[in-house]
């Protein structure tokens, strides 16, 4: 669904960060900011909460570790214990490497899957972005036209932006 947005296009990160701080202080509602590379401090300036992906990673790690260790213990200790020179079938130390590898594997795959799903990253998805130059050298603030203050355009220009009005899906 497309909507009308006021776009403030910047050429560098400092004026962009400054503008985001100012606009938010003045009570403007920012839909989203688009940049060619990660700008440090931008998520805090926008008031975004910290990503919960680390928590997902931790849970997947617990799952992987438990699965890995219990799989080996059940297979070699319960389901088919083998007598190898009279040594104990449940050789816990021997299970460390595979448990470790499975923990890492399941954490990585689980977290990346969560990342792709939560960001709606599916092969072939059309990008929802206001300007194709964003992935090269343009920094863009998108403000919904509906409910924006009447002076927002001139304020953006004052902050150093090139201003556009566009109907896009974001």
């Amino acid at each position, binding site marked *: 669904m497309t909507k009308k947005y006021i776009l403030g296009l910047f050429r560098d990160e400092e004026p962009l960060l400054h503008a985001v701080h100012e606009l938010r202080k003045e009570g403007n509602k920012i839909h*989203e*900011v*688009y*940049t*060619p*590379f*990660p*700008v*440090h401090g*931008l*998520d805090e300036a*926008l008031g*975004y909460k*910290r*990503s919960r*992906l*680390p928590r997902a*990673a931790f849970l997947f790690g617990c799952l992987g570790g438990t699965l890995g260790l219990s*799989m*080996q213990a059940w*297979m*070699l200790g319960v*389901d*088919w214990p*083998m007598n190898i020179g009279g040594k104990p079938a449940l*050789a816990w130390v*021997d*299970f460390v*490497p*595979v448990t*470790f*590898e*499975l923990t*890492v*594997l399941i*954490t*990585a*795959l689980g*977290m*990346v899957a969560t*990342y*792709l799903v*939560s*960001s*709606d*990253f*599916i*092969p*072939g*998805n*059309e*990008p*929802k*972005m206001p300007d*194709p*130059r*964003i*992935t*090269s*050298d343009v920094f863009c603030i998108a403000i919904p036209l509906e409910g924006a203050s009447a002076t927002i355009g001139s304020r953006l220009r004052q902050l150093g932006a090139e201003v556009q009005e566009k109907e896009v899906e974001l």
Partner: protein
Amino acid sequence: MFESPTRRPLITGKTSYSQITEDIIKPIEAKPTKWWYLGFTVSLAALGLWLLSVTYLLFTGVGVWGLNKTVDWGWDITNFVWWVGIGHAGTLISAVLLLFRQKWRTAVNRSAEAMTIFAVVCAGSYPLLHAGRPWLIYWVFPLPNTYGSLWSNFNSPLLWDVFAISTYLTVSLVFWYVGLIPDLATIRDRAVGIRRKIYGLMSFGWNGSAKGWQRFESVSLILAGLSTPLVLSVHTIVSFDFATSVIPGWHTTIFPPYFVAGAVFSGFAMVQTLLIIMRKSMRLEQYITLNHIDVMNKIILVTGSIVGSAYITEFFIAWYSAVPYEQYAFANRMFGPYWWAYWTMMTCNVITPQLFWSRKLRRSLTASFIISIFVNIGMWFERFVIIVTSLHRDYLPSSWLMYSPSWVEICMYIGSLGLFFTLFFLFAKFLPVIAVAEVKSIYKTSSEEEIAKTAAKEGLDLREAHAHTQGAH
């Protein structure tokens, strides 16, 4: 963040954000150069040799190798360990250096990670083929079966290796691809037609939003945190293949750290070899500067010294253990029938990296290139020495045998280099060889132009501090 202006620049010459995009993406959009076609053809020819020898091997059996009852690991396992070792630098650069916030990694991490993945693919092919019937390789995994179920033996280091290598390949691949997504979107947004479709499909709808970058950084950091112990575990487990056995020369506790250091050593040497060729042939001198070559040479020096110390420690412990078999194994390495392999290893791995104490050699492209090749050769011989010299003298002198590779093993080795370079040439043509977004993120703090601006503001004269970087371009 304040960055000392006296710190040497990591991006030299005139640049801007759009210029960085242009410089790195251009080779993907343009027709490949003559050099690319030449290199690719040679690699393809070698890959053909690999297919030929592997086909012959599969139709005839592993008996076509030069192995015998005494020396039952030869070039196959030597090449396996060599390739896995080479595959260590990529993850080290992208993960460990990310955790340490080393900015120079941004120019080299992408190609080093690609190299890691291709090297692990080459490595994996050896145990797969050594198994004799690769179509039954799924037997190594604990799958329910009609024999009981009789499960895999989790007490065996060989099985740990299966899990270590396959986890390493998967996680490296995922890490690499997650990092590629923003750059694939950059290619997509410059392209039209079929190219836009393909890169659009591959970039998953990336849009550069602040939320997207926040998640991206979070995922990268955790993957780096996971990959760091993973990369250490992989070569540790490879070394367990040897260390947990009772063969003199293998049964030592020094093996895990010694193998990991050797892996990083050989991995950086291979990165160095490739980067020196790549920066020249793809005109990336502005991004892969002499400062990058210099720091990587320092890592080669450090890890090379660790490896050298490990050789000496191993030798001392063999003598100190007072075990005659152990002492014989080491004396035999030096003065036995394979003395030439031992001394090649010592020369290439212990002596040549020490040349990097000289700043002049560290910053010389020719010297770096030649020494990196020496290290690659030396590390191959290290594995050969460990494997073959320890095996060829069995406990019973009646079992003493010599080993030399057959033409199939030689063709498979040349062929695996072909496989590696074919993949690398394809990567260099179709994917950005430098992480575009990451280089842009260090532009403000680390480019020559921006540093000069800061210095001018503070009234500093940088001519003195940067005098030695001038020869670079």
